[in-house]
C-alpha cells in the first residue's frame, strides 16, 4: 500500500458498487485492520476500500436464529446486540476482541477453539452478497439454514483475503449461547496433553473446546445446561486426573469479563466453576469488550499468564502471538500435530488437539522451514503476523487445485485489481 492511496469509505451497497465500477486500478479491501498484515504482503494500490462504515444488523430473526449484517460490523458488537436473545455466532477467533469485522473474519477464514464443534465461519455462513471488481452485485445462499439452491459463493470468498470480491452482506446461522460453561485446566506438556486429549475425544464427554497452550496448559471447556454441568465437570476431572483444576475464568473468551469477576483464582470445585459460568452466560454480550481489553493488554513475550486469569483471553493472546516475530497458522491431521509442533522453533503456540489447527509464533527466519515441515506432514500453512516490512514467504507449496484458483480469480477479477500480492507466488 502506498501513502498516496485514496480511501473510499462507502456508506451502503450502492456506494460499494460505485466504488468498484467507477474506478480502475489496484485496490485493497480493508476492515478493522486486525489482519491487515496476514498472508502475502500487499503490492501498491491506488485505493483502499474501507468497509468500516458498512455496519449494523440488516435483519435478525430470533425465532429462525439467523441474522444478516453489513460486513464492517465488528463481531463483538454483533454479539452485544444478539445477547438479549441469548444467541451468538459460534465463532471465537482470537482477534474478535480486537474489533475484527464479520467481513474480515470471512475473508480470512478465521476460527478459534469453538471450531472443535462448530467449525469455522464457512460452516455458519448461509448467505452472502458480493460485489465483484467490475461492480457486479451477486447474491448467493439465503436466509434459511438449509438451502442447496445454486453455488455457494460464500465458500469462494472464505479465505480469499480480499482478492476475489468485496463481501457486502453476510447472513449467518446463530446458535444459543450456552446456559453454562466451565473450563478445566491441566498443567502438562504438549505430549501429555495429546495423550489426555485422545482419551477425552474417545469418550462421551463432548468438550466444546480442547486446546493446549504453550504456557503448558491443557484447556478443556464444557458447555451446556447448568443442571448437568456439575456432573459433567466431575467426569472430566476424573478423566484428567488430580492435577486438573477448574479455571478461574469463564467458559469462553467472550464471557471473559463477567466470569473473571465471578471466578477469580478459585479452583475449589466443579460446582463453583459452574455457578460462576452460569451467571456469565446471560452477560455474554456485555462481557465481550472486557475480554477484549484483557486480551489486548496482554502480550506474549514469554509471560505465562498473558491476558490475566481468564484462560481463554490468555489463549487468544497467545494465538495473536508476538508481532515482533512471525506468526504462522497451521492445519494438519490432529494426530500429527504434536510431533510437528515439537519439530518447530516455537516461541508461543496454541494447538487445537481435536481440530488439528495450531497457531505458532516463531523467529522470522524460520518461516520458510515451518512451511516446508508442515507441508511434509501433509498440512497447510499461512503466514499471519510478520515483523514490520519483513519479506517472508506467506504460503507453502501451492495446492494441486491452484489452476482452478487462478481461473476463479481471472473470472471474478480479470484485471487483477483486488488485493494484489496476497497470494504471491500462487496467483
Amino acid at each position, binding site marked *: 500500500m502506498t501513502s498516496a492511496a485514496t480511501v473510499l469509505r462507502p456508506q451502503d451497497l450502492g456506494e460499494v458498487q460505485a466504488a468498484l465500477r467507477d474506478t480502475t486500478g489496484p485496490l485493497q479491501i480493508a476492515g478493522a485492520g486486525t489482519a491487515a498484515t496476514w498472508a502475502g504482503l500487499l503490492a501498491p494500490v491506488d485505493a483502499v476500500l474501507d468497509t468500516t462504515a458498512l455496519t449494523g444488523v440488516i435483519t435478525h430473526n430470533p425465532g429462525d436464529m439467523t441474522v444478516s449484517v453489513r460486513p464492517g460490523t465488528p463481531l463483538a458488537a454483533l454479539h452485544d446486540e444478539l445477547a438479549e436473545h441469548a444467541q451468538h455466532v459460534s465463532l471465537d477467533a482470537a482477534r474478535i476482541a480486537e474489533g475484527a469485522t464479520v467481513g474480515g473474519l470471512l475473508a480470512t477464514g478465521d476460527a478459534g477453539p469453538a471450531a472443535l464443534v462448530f467449525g469455522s465461519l464457512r460452516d455458519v455462513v448461509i448467505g452472502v452478497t458480493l460485489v465483484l471488481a467490475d461492480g457486479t452485485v451477486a447474491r448467493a445462499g439465503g436466509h434459511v439454514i438449509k438451502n442447496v439452491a445454486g453455488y455457494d459463493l460464500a*465458500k469462494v470468498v472464505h479465505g480469499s483475503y480480499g482478492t476475489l470480491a468485496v463481501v457486502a452482506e453476510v447472513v449467518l446461522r446463530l446458535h444459543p449461547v450456552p446456559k453454562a460453561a466451565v473450563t478445566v485446566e491441566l498443567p502438562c506438556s504438549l505430549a501429555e496433553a495429546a495423550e489426555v486429549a485422545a482419551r477425552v475425544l474417545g469418550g462421551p*464427554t463432548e468438550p466444546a473446546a480442547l486446546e493446549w497452550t504453550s504456557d503448558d496448559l491443557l484447556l478443556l471447556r464444557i458447555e451446556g445446561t447448568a443442571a448437568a454441568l456439575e456432573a459433567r465437570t466431575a467426569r472430566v476431572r476424573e478423566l484428567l486426573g488430580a492435577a486438573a483444576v477448574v479455571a478461574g475464568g469463564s467458559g469462553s473468551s467472550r464471557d471473559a469479563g463477567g466470569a473473571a469477576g465471578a471466578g477469580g483464582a478459585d479452583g475449589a470445585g466443579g460446582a463453583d466453576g459452574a455457578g460462576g459460568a452460569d451467571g456469565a452466560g446471560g452477560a455474554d454480550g456485555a462481557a465481550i469488550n472486557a475480554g477484549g481489553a484483557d486480551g489486548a493488554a496482554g502480550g506474549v513475550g514469554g509471560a505465562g499468564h498473558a491476558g490475566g486469569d481468564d484462560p481463554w483471553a490468555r489463549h487468544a493472546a497467545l494465538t495473536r502471538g508476538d508481532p515482533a516475530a512471525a506468526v504462522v497458522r497451521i*492445519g494438519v491431521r490432529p494426530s500429527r500435530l504434536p510431533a510437528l509442533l515439537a519439530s518447530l522453533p516455537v516461541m508461543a503456540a496454541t494447538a487445537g488437539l481435536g481440530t488439528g489447527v495450531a497457531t505458532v509464533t516463531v523467529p522470522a527466519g524460520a518461516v520458510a522451514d515451518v512451511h516446508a515441515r508442515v507441508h511434509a506432514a501433509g498440512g497447510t500453512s*499461512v503466514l499471519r503476523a510478520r515483523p514490520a516490512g519483513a519479506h517472508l514467504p506467506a504460503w507453502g507449496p501451492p495446492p494441486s487445485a491452484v489452476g482452478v484458483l487462478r481461473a*476463479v480469480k481471472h473470472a471474478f477479477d480479470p484485471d487483477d485489481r483486488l488485493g494484489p500480492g496476497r497470494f504471491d507466488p500462487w496467483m
Partner: protein
Amino acid sequence: MALDSAVRQAFEQALSPADVISDPVQCRAYECDGLTGYRVVPDLVLLPRDAEQVAAAVRVCHERKVPFVARGAGTGLSGGALPVADGVVISVSRLNKILEIDPVDRRAVVEPGVTNLSITKAAAPHGLYYAPDPSSQQVCTIGGNIAENSGGAHCLKYGFTTHHVLATEVVLADGTLVTVGTDTSEQAGPDLRGVVLGSEGTLGIVTQATVRLMRVPESVQTLLADFPSIAAAGDVVSDVVAAGIVPAAIEMMDTLAIEAAEEAVHAGYTVGVPAALIVELDGPAEECGVQFEQVKAICEKHGCTRLHIAGSADERAAIWRGRKAAFAAVGRISPDYFVQDGVVPRTRLAEVLDRIAAMGAEAGLRVANVFHAGDGNLHPLVLYNADAGETEQAEHLSGGIAELCVEMGGSLSGEHGIGTDKACSMPRMFSDDDLATMQRVRAAFDPDGLCNPGKVFPTPRLCGERPGKYQAHPLEASGKIERV
C-alpha cells in the same frame, strides 16, 4: 447413435471395451434418476474402475467435446443425474471401496460409489458414525451426497454433507485430478472444497472423499408426540428452539403422511391425529436427560394428546422407520406422487402449510406433508393419478409450492438439489447477475460446459426463450435485504 464409433473406440481404449456400454437396451437402465418424469437415453455408459480411468474417460470427453454426466446410485430426486443427449454417463458404481477408517483422527477415506450407510457400518466397531443421514442412506452414494450436499433428519444439530466432508479428490472437466480441501477445517486460500460440495456434478467428478466421523453419542432420547393441530406442533418447535435446545432431530408429519406411514410399516403412529412430532436429543447422558425433561414439558404445555417415549433402541428404530418410510408409503394411498423440497424460515411453517393446503384444494389434489421442522425444510408430497390425466396439474402444483417457499423468504431446495427439476425456477430466487456470477465459477472449472450440462441453471431450451422473470425477493421488497 450420435456419437461416432471413433469416440466409442477412444473410450474403449481409455477403459476397456467391456467397460463401455453402447447397447441401447442396456443404456436405457441409466435414462433417469429418482425423478423418473425426465428421461434421456445416453449414447454410452462408462464404468471406470478407478480414479485414473475416470480421468482418462473425461480426457476423451474434453478432447472430443462430449458432454458427460456422473452417476452414483441414481437415487437423486431432482434429475441431477439425467443423461444428456449425444453424451455419456460416467458411473462411479465400481469405485466402491472404503480405503481407510482412522479411529484416532476420526475420519474415513472413501471412494464415491460407497453408500452412505456403509460408512457408518464400517465405523461402528470403533464407536464412530458418519452423521448425514438422508432417507435413502441405505442405497445412495457418498458421491451423490457430495454433489447434492445432502442433509437428512439429523442435520439441524450436525449439519449437512458440507460440514462432514473435509476434502475431495476431483477429476476436473479437462481430465486433471486435483484435491480440494485438507485434513482440517483450515485451508490455505479460498474454500474450493465448499464450492464443489453441492454443485450437483457441474464442476467435476468426485473420485475420493475424506469424511469426518463422529463419536456415537452416549445417550439418545426419542419421543413421538401427537398434537391437535399443526399450529400446536409448530409452537412446540418454536419453544424448544427458544429454550436454547438444539435437538438432534425434530420432524413433523401431518395426518395424511401419518396414515400412509402407519399403514405401511405399523410403527405405532396414531392414525387420524392432525400432527405428530418426532423429537430426538443426543449427547452426554446428564445433558441429554435434563433437556429431554424440558422438551416433554413443552409438549405437554401445547396440548400434546399422546406422548410416546422410545424405551429401547428397537422402539426408537420403529419411530424412525415410520418417518423414513413416509415417502414410499404414500404410494399406498395414491398411485403417483411428486416430492417437493422447499425451505421456509421455521417461524413461517404454519402459514406455509395453510397456503399449501389451499393450493391443493384449488387444484383438487391431496398433499401429504413430512418435514424437517427444525430447519423449515418441507417435503410436501403431491398425490395424483397419472392415468386420470392429473400429471400436468400435479407438476404445476408442485412447482408452485417450491416457488411459494421462495416467496416466503426461503429456498427452492433444502437437500434434493435444483437439477433439471427446478432449474427453470432459479430466476425466482436469483437475479440475472447472481446466476451470471455463479456461471463465472462454472466456467472457471469447466470452460466448455461439458460437465453435467443443463442442470442447476435455467436454459432457453429447457425453460423457453426467456427464462421466468426475476422478481424482487420478498426480503428485498420489504427492505430486509439490499440490492442496487
